């Protein structure tokens, strides 16, 4: 299993949260908002600006800097 950063996924691609390499607070925030370990994430939009993902159909926008620190196991 290879883990990739959320910013490397294109719109439509899916993955499972594997690890978050951000600071303590940001990590906790991400956990709370649904990026817990093994949460399924679908990338909705990843071009300019924050990355938008869907977790169970609910959309969350993450600034690029932060999105970069979310590591996913990409679904094949």
């Amino acid at each position, binding site marked *: 299993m290879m883990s990739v950063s959320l910013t490397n996924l294109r719109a439509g691609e899916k993955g499972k949260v594997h690890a978050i390499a951000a600071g303590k607070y940001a990590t906790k925030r991400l*956990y709370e908002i*649904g990026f*817990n370990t093994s949460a399924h994430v679908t990338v909705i939009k990843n071009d300019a600006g924050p990355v938008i993902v869907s977790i*169970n159909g609910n959309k969350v926008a993450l600034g690029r800097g932060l999105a970069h620190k979310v590591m996913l196991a990409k679904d094949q």
Partner: protein
Amino acid sequence: MKTKRIALVGNPNSGKTTLFNAITGANQHVGNWPGVTVEKKEGSFTYRGATYDVVDLPGIYSLGAFSEDEIVAMDYILTDDADVIIDVIDASNIERNLYLTTQLLEMGKNLVIALNMVDEAEKREMKFDVAAMSRALGVPVVPTVASRDNGTEAVIKEAVKAIERKRVYQNPLTYSDNVSHHHEHMVELLEGKDLPYPPAWAAIKVIEGDSHVISRIEASTDDATVLNGITEFHKFHSSDNFELEIVDSRYAFAHRIAEQTVKRPPVEVVTLTDKIDKILINKYLGIPIFALIMLAVFQLTFAIGQDLLGGYAAALVEGLGVLIERFLIWAHSPEWLVSFMIDGVVNGVGAVVEFVPLITVMYLLLSLLEDSGYMARAAYVWDNLMRAFGMQGKAFISMIIGFGCTVPAIMSTRTMDNKKDRMVTMLITPFMSCGAKLPIYSVFIAAFFSDHGGLVLFSLYAFGIIVGLLMAKLFNKTIFKGETSYFIMELPPYRIPSTKSVMRSMWLNVSDFIKRAGTIIFMVVTIMWLLAVLPGSAEPYSQSSYLGRLGTLLVPIFRHAGFGTWQESVALFAGIPAKEAVVGTLGMLYAGQYMEEGVVLVNAVQQHFTSLTALAYMVMVLLYTPCAATISAVARETKSVRWPVAMALYTFAIGWFVAVLVFQIGSLFGFA
């Protein structure tokens, strides 16, 4: 007997305030973005002859708080004595919402769950087994659609029952072996120590390393074994990270409940929201569309509020004025009373009241925007650009709120968990032109730019944003250095704004405007009138009146900006208590000066200004010192005297500087 208390707790944007309004009949502001409610709101209702207090709290994702608004909610949950908590859950986002529920259960709170917005979840083809959910969680679950008052009655009934029943403490969670092992020991240590929390929960919080809870535990006891035990534990496990393990157990629990009780379609339904978002937040179209929406708001505000309805309001005020004057003369009232009523009240306060249709339309349009779900998108499309100025997208929501009123805009910064971001946002919100300034622009636009009202207004607002961003950049380079915080924003589904909530929001703002006209504007205009007719030896409304002398002192300050008459200077001064008073004061002074019936303020303005000085004056009004309510809001939020004073002075300097620039450059190019 003490009145029973019910608290509303839940994730941001799950509909707590909508439910609060439905239960209590209150009129609290709601909107469709996370973070509308930033402070505790209280209300009450009567059910079967008994009265219950209800507390509405800001939304939280968990019991670990980061920002000011979340701390309010968390503190309440940690210290309050609410007899029951109604946990409001967004049904379509059940797992994430159950994460908070899990923590409340873990804490042993007496809960009733309002499974809210089930209609939206059903649109996404989600099905709920409410009975099974209630069994699995061990607390009542009531499906609701608070916006349509569906299920409200049932929630109240369950809450009242729960108050009588009380919940027996039972921890629903199983932790990992590693955590369980430490948990047992920690419970042993804390058991029977008379702590403010159930020992099992206190123990898990200690292991999790929750500093809020630990400091509360430490403050509540002087038992050395407890204090040492906690310190020892953290010293010994300083390199362990139990927190994420515990969070994972909570999510596992929430996930299991959702698996067991919620049926989802095999493939996510593509909603209308997805389709709309394809366009509204498109990489290239996002900001142009935002600009178009704002332009439409101002064009409509002008077209409907001014051109269509403005005339009626003006005629009404004028007619009332004539009526009052005739009555006063018929009643042989003293001359000073006639002068006060006509020049002061009718021409002063009336000049403000005339703009009720205008601001009504603007607040209506802004509340449509707030309810639609677009606010979060605006934050999204602006995040990149905001970053270039050292800010983040979330700040943009505060800025848009500022178009309505600066005071709630300043309060909305409580949702920012980075102190630097919050301070910078507070310092620039006054440049977002508020509703009270609208009457001022309106008079000058009617006098000089009546063909392009909406466009001039749009340009002023846009200019306010630009100045705000530039100042933000400057602050970031000088006094507020450091990292801009990360951007996390939920994008709620678009909703067709409910008539009830739009009308409520509009009415809250309009009634406030009218109330202000009757109170603070009336007071300011009265004081201005007194100063304008005194001393008795001076010609009223002349330069030798007290007001004239004061204005004359101020004249040199504004001469370089092109509006150097004492009336114009003094009106700006009157605008510091409240911005509407600028129009009120000009209306009163010009009416008094010409001493003729039916002097229209617009005509007087045409005689005293040129289009260039009118522009400079509008820019000054846009940027200079915000109203007293704003300054005191900054004092409250920063708990300081320094910041509000600094804000009052620097905005004045910016306003003056830019107004001078406009006038001088304009003159250079031969405009007049």
